[in-house]
């Protein structure tokens, strides 16, 4: 069956078994390797993507559920030459250690900031609580998200 959707702004058409997991299609067929798999059961958030702008776990989505939708992965937010403000903030504020949770975390943060542009630290913690990070203890991740939020609101970056 052919499945059509947009991935990071580009249309894709893929002839595949509609019962396959979205995470496998994105990684193995389409090379969106920023989408990580940490558990495969919806517990860790590493496989997060934005589906029509909403944060979803791609290990729990089937290929057929992508049909006609718009998928954005961390690659779609920005790259090293033109990084997204959140990607910069994560790198700058020490929110990246092993980095395996990071793409999913960045997407979760993006989804949070779209809903709440001025989150306090507790809001950030709640917004990211579906994404596990085993390395950082989250403190610097919260720092990074708040810094990016300030920047987005046009505030000056706190030194």
């Amino acid at each position: 069956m052919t499945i059509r959707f947009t991935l990071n702004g580009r249309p894709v058409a893929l002839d595949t078994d509609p019962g396959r997991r979205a995470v496998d299609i994105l990684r193995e067929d389409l090379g969106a390797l920023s989408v990580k798999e940490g558990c495969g059961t919806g517990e860790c958030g590493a496989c997060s993507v934005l589906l029509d702008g909403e944060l979803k776990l791609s290990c729990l989505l089937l290929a057929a559920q992508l049909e006609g939708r718009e998928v954005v992965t961390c690659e779609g937010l920005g790259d090293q030459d033109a990084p997204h403000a959140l990607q910069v903030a994560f790198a700058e504020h020490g929110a990246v250690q092993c980095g395996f949770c990071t793409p999913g975390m960045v997407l979760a943060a993006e989804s949070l900031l779209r809903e709440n542009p001025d989150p306090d630290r507790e809001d950030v913690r709640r917004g990211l609580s579906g994404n596990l990070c085993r390395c950082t203890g989250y403190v610097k991740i919260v720092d990074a998200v708040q810094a990016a939020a300030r920047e987005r609101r046009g505030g000056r970056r706190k030194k």
Partner: protein
Amino acid sequence: MSGRFPRVDALPKACGAERFAADQYPEGCLWAGAFRPGAAHARVLAVHTAEALALPGVLKVLTAADVPGANLQGIVHKDQPVLCGDVVRHAGDPVALVLAESREALERALGLLRADLEPLPAVFDPREAMRPGAPRVHAGREGGNVLMAAEIRKGDAARALAACPVVVRGTFETPRQAPAFLETECGVARRLPDGVLDMTVSTQSPFRDRFEVAQALGLDPLSVRVRAPYLGGGFGGKDGSTVQCLLALAALHADGRPVRMAWSREESFSAGYKRHPSILRCELGADRDGTLRALRCRMVLDTGAYAHLGGEVLELGMEHMAGPYRVPHILVRGFCVYTNNPVSGAMRGFGVAQATFCAERMMDRLAAKLGLDPLELRLKNVLGPGEENACGVRLTGSTEARACLTALRDHPFWASRREWAAQAPARTRRGVAVALAHNAMGYGGGLPDMAAAKVELTEEGRFRIYCAVSDMGQGNVGGHAAMAAQALNQPREELDIVLPDTERCHPSGSSAAGRTTYTFGNALLKACAAMADKVRARAALFLLCDDPSSLVLESGRVIWPDACKSVSLALMARFLPRDDRISVAEFAMPVAREVSGASRGFVLGFPHLLFAYSAHLARVELDELTGRVRVADYFAATDGGGVVLPQGFEQQIQGGAAQGLGLALMEDCASRDGRLLTPDLSTYLVPTALDLPEIGSLAVPSHESSGPGGLKGVGEVAMDAPLPAVASAVEQAAGIRLDAAPLTPERVLAALRRARKNT
């Protein structure tokens, strides 16, 4: 050192562009997976492969008969089969390896495999396993189920205890903790036409892997090449062979095609390495003024079905049993015991996290009994520079444990502890407590702790550094790049970085034991200094300068300020042969020379000379109705030596403390009859952002003269103190003693109920 991105790996990772071992899908790659029948102890009578083999897309099903070589892996003791032939000794043991064309075919094949097993008597409690009649995990093994028994003896603990006016006692238990790195064990391998086995693995020890794979499968180590991209976490659990030997075996049977293996989360829990569960029994004696006199302890570790690093974990735990305190009379007995449980192994805080729980809780108990302030009691007994530690080693390195403690004494959380506790909301209790930890760096005596660093001036005139130690997320590559940039006076972006690759880099030890940056960093600084000298000397020839020392190495060129002349590195590089553009240097960590006769039964890794220190402060809130413990605030003061990358230092402290808080609050890889009760991340809970407090970190001023930039290893010490700090704060809050971790709501409620009954 500053700069917009202190870590070279940060932006590529934040953009999702970094490629981990898990991201390798070579063209035409096969999928390998292990069949693990799930019995805790059984004789393997037959493995039925025909049905799986008949599936389309299934290439091979290998069993023990297909394993060439010794079919035994293990870092120190080689006792773990790559594929089990005769017996399985724990539920995660594999008996077959499938090679398939696709993920789907692999999964179907694994579902069709069956083994005929004859159950064998099994043992799951390490104390029972030590008894003479217990079922044997390794039949015929001399020493039975006791993998290792050791003793540290100093003075006469029994006599001294009998003479002490105050003695406190305790028995403590710590759980099996899973490293739970987000990237599970994984890698790819391929046999090249020239016979080389080329592997890319998520590993902390690429150079050791080469020997492990070769030894287990009967290959020439030089025909094995191991590359280690950035790891998606390790924490000790990727120190040693996980997928390596299985992958190599698969590649040997893949007719030159690449093979990929990535464990599922469930497989990672059942077959990966986890922190040793421990049982600790202890008596501590002191004078009335709180001066410590004597300590007697017994430590029992459950290594599970295989040794892995069990003996070494035991040794380190025993070495740390007395805490960073002055104790004249000591007797520590330790046992590391085989059971039919999942395999224990290295994990951050390697035996020390367990020992620190006991040592620090005993200090609190003593303080309570004597009516002393727990922080002052610690200050009274804490070791200082030049003193002899509990194992008879004189502390010649930086030893700022006292400064760590005084930083807490001056902290507002400590000063305001009574007011804060008094303001507890309704049905809540509050407590504040401290704990102090020390953690040795490096492999310790008897095991060379070496690194060799290579620096190259490339044909393009750039410097390339060959990082030979894995970066599992702790940021050593960033730290090393920063060090090299400074030593070579180049902008960091101008450096080329090569990640660990046994063919291109020089041999170095593992990324473990808080040694990585210290040992490799020292080697790298030497290599860079030699490189800078060489470049100046060669530049002198170009510039017709008779004094190379008057030349200055700058970004991309060497200048002769006095003559206003310069030569670019790019030009020079084109005239120099490659071996003239390379500089290699090595470094070995110093070990304790004066070893007292205090220890018996220690094989490797004892004693240590250098230690990091960390004092932690926890403010805890306990909900009387639910039993839930919430850590409200957390603060760590750490002596990790000089700070090269402040951000990296804080990352290590916050991350380590977070894992320690996980151990304190919720992590328990529980098992029954050898089967995990927490097989996945929905049952094995690791802290989310909502479970952890803000974690403040202070680096106390310190300088380790033997370290690069004065630094020591700080990767592990933050892991050790959270559990005792939280347990103590809970005791402060509610007067309940919890000596078994983690402090789950069930345990807290039960203790509260007991306390109510008793009053």
